[in-house]
């Protein structure tokens, strides 16, 4: 990736060459290498570096935004001229907030140089060892081994300059038999923390255990959701109930409920970019310092993300969650952290008379944002739990469930969280959960 000084030089040059009243430059860069495998062989192997820059020029109350990919100084004047034309060709203006002065930020840990520089041969060797284990069990393996580095920088004509770097190594594997599959994934800031053999073993074990699955009838069940399954549904809360603008406009489940009990008392949910490995950025997309938020405390709704516009609407402080000066989507919590509880997954299973253990969900989508009603399928390992033990694999089921109802019906929270970066400031940290009355609404054939 480019060095901090090269990024700084580019932003300084843009600001120097601009004749706008206000100029802001942001740069997102990603170096990503990924080895993909299926049917026990490498099928795709790619390496790319991408930069995207965005220039925002304000003339009076008119704004022009341009973006491009090449950080070449010779393009700057052309882009600035286009931004000016866009701004000056608008007949109506809008409210313009002043640019922020230089700020102080806390540090987000999450960059490892060695992870950025992993070679294709190292990735191939890691994949080979995992595939060998699956092949030995007569299973077909598919997955990825990737390493990436990401940077995000913002600078403005008031002298603000902020930059943050993250790295990520991910290994993901699906082991498949004729009628079952098992899955495991690990995502870390450093490749040294990955254990691909352990992941392969988990995937193989799940595939073995779910062989010859039986059908379960749709209905309400107690479910034990492994962390990946929790992440699959909890992530929807970010843009539905915790979108600051939607909240202010009365368009979320939580509108008008601040200070009210909205979840079981075991639920403590934060927006926390400072968790190691979550991929957080300590500032928002206007360069304002990001504050850690307590969204739900002991089941009570406490805080909502704001930017300047939403803060004004709600008469709250700006807590640094802007998605950009001209954003119309609304400030979001990008780093949801569900606080761990005290229970292991084994204890959840042992305490369950009849229930379903879920590895992960697939293709979850929102049906009714006001009710937080989502639907999706189970995937890669779903098991019947009876009288405290895992009995056998089940054919996959579709659920149609309100997420906030699930948080209210939570009976146990896991003692270990997975932490995963979603790239460019996004990511989450969630443990397993045991939830009663989880609604499965139809079944499928495998």
């Amino acid at each position, binding site marked *: 990736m480019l060095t901090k000084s090269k990024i700084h030089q580019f932003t300084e040059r843009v600001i120097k060459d601009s004749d706008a009243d206000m100029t802001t430059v942001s740069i997102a860069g990603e170096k990503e290498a990924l080895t993909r495998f299926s*049917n026990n062989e490498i099928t795709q192997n790619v390496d790319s570096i991408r930069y995207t820059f965005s220039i925002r020029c304000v003339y009076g109350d008119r704004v022009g935004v341009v*973006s491009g990919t090449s950080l070449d100084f010779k393009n700057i004047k052309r882009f600035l001229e286009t931004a000016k034309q866009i701004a000056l*060709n608008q*007949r109506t203006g*809008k409210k313009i907030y002043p640019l922020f002065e230089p700020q102080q930020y806390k540090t987000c840990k999450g960059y490892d140089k060695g992870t950025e520089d992993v070679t*294709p041969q190292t990735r191939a060797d890691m994949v080979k060892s995992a595939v060998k284990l699956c092949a030995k069990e007569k299973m077909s393996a598919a997955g990825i081994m990737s390493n990436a580095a990401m940077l995000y920088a913002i600078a403005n004509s008031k002298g603000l300059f902020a930059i943050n770097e993250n790295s990520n190594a991910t290994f993901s594997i699906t082991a498949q038999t004729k009628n079952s599959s098992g899955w495991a994934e690990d995502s870390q800031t450093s490749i040294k923390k990955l254990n691909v053999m352990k992941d392969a073993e988990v995937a193989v074990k799940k595939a073995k255990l779910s062989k010859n699955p039986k059908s379960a009838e749709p209905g309400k069940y107690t479910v034990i959701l492994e962390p990946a399954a929790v992440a699959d549904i909890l992530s929807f809360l970010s843009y539905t109930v915790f979108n600051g603008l939607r909240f202010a406009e009365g*368009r979320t489940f939580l509108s008008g409920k601040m200070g009210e009990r909205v979840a079981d008392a075991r639920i403590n949910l934060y927006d926390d970019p400072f968790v190691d490995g979550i991929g957080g950025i300590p500032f928002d997309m206007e360069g304002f310092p990001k504050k850690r938020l307590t969204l739900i405390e002991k089941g009570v709704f406490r805080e909502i993300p704001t930017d300047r516009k939403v803060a004004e609407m709600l008469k709250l402080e700006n807590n640094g969650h802007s998605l950009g000066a001209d954003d119309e989507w609304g400030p979001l919590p990008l780093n949801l952290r569900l606080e761990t509880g005290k229970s292991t997954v084994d204890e959840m299973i042992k305490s369950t008379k009849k229930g379903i253990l879920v590895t992960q969900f697939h*293709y979850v*989508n929102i049906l009714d944002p006001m009710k937080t009603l989502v639907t999706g399928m189970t995937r890669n390992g779903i098991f019947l739990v009876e009288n405290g033990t895992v009995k056998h694999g089940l054919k996959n089921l579709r659920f149609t469930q309100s997420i906030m109802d699930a948080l209210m019906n939570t009976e146990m929270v896991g003692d270990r969280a997975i932490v995963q970066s979603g790239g460019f400031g996004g990511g989450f940290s969630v443990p397993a959960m045991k939830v009663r009355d989880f609604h499965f609404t139809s079944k499928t054939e495998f």
Partner: protein
Amino acid sequence: MFKLGNLAIETAKHYGADYADIRIIETKNEDLNVRNGKVSADYSQTLGFGVRVLYRGSWGFASSDTLTMEEVKKVSKEAVLIAKASNTLQAAKVRWAKEDSYKDHWFTPALKNPFRIPLEQKLDLMLKIDEILRKKPEIRVSTVEMSFQNIRKWFVNSQGSEILQDLMRSGAGYSVTSVGNNDMQVRSYPASFGGQYYSGGYEIVEQMELLQNAERVREEAIELLTADECEEKVSDVIIGGSQMVLQIHESVGHATELDRVLGYEANYAGTSFATLEKYKKFKYGSPIVNLFADSTIPLGLATHGYDDDGVKAQRWDIVKNGVLSGYMTNRELAHKINDTRSRGCSRSQGFSSIPIIRIANLSLAPGEWELDDLIKDTKNGVFMDTNKSWSIDQMRLNFQFGCEIGYEIKNGKKGRMLKNCSYQDITPEFWGKCDAICNENHWDLWGVINCGKGQPGQRAEMSHGSSPARFRKVHIGIGNKKR
């Protein structure tokens, strides 16, 4: 550009590549957005290249956004090194289907270059629409969008092809969010999630009747707040054209991507129930169901001269008289169904992404019914349209889709408006329940601009043509109150 392209090919061959291709891609986008009267205008331009090589039957790919001779050489060498690493875990060599070499310049027919239409003219139209949409207090959010894209793509391969394609697409649409009665509802026009898109110029936007429909759409959004909820039950449904797009896309398009069928997407997007032993035998739907892929169809978002493997555009059957009859293929996998030539479905998001199999323009052939006659012929049912939500399992069997709006049909008459409409079924069972399809008077192509697939993730665009169709005894209103 072709000079740089040939330099990449020579370099890759020098380092041992058996096959190489390069795509140099320049992309221009203009995205305009008016939300509650506030304008956002974003113009972007990208330029770069991706080099793909085969070394002893294994793939390598590398890319860069620096278009110099030195960088082209460096990246081409890097692609070969990556292919050599891939070669250390190879079960079988890639078999690359034959294709003629072409020297050609292909471009999208477009009457009015949208990038030359004054910004003020485009924003004027958007602000007028926005004004109509926000005339009632129940409308909390109005969003009007326009988006234009121009891609210039230079393709060179080691088999002698030199192809330049100039692709243009234009789109527009709007949506309103109404709030009241302890509810929130959304209505969109001409389609949800950004509107309607075609390949072509600004003339497309001018023909959309955007202003003429704004008041109706606003009033529907308000009426939905107090409309009855679609009850959970088993019922006949007539699915409108814009919702059929998602039905075709999710339950036929992805299911017939040959890489999915063969397990290449098993860890991410999933596999498919439409496996090879079913080819040319499996009853995918009722005998009136005919679905065809067509990369040459006018106005399609996946309409082009050549795909990213350098294969010339074609039209072919996917489902013929209800039977599975074809797949989306590329040059690497065509031989798996004993085809000697690829169908030309290899596409990538841009210069930094490797081409993978993507859904082509895929359409349901029109039937014989007038929509009025179809409604008259339906005793009890629900008409649903405009997609709101979608979900389908990893083998493309169990799906559940939500629609923005529905109407009860009773004794052949369209009745009360219904909200929170959804339907769920199993793919071949659902298509087997199709007993009527409206004719060409009701048929249109609908653009999909947000199709995600692959790791690293890639976005692709394609179109699906359909007219409204009727399906018997379908589970609807999932999660709503039962009768």
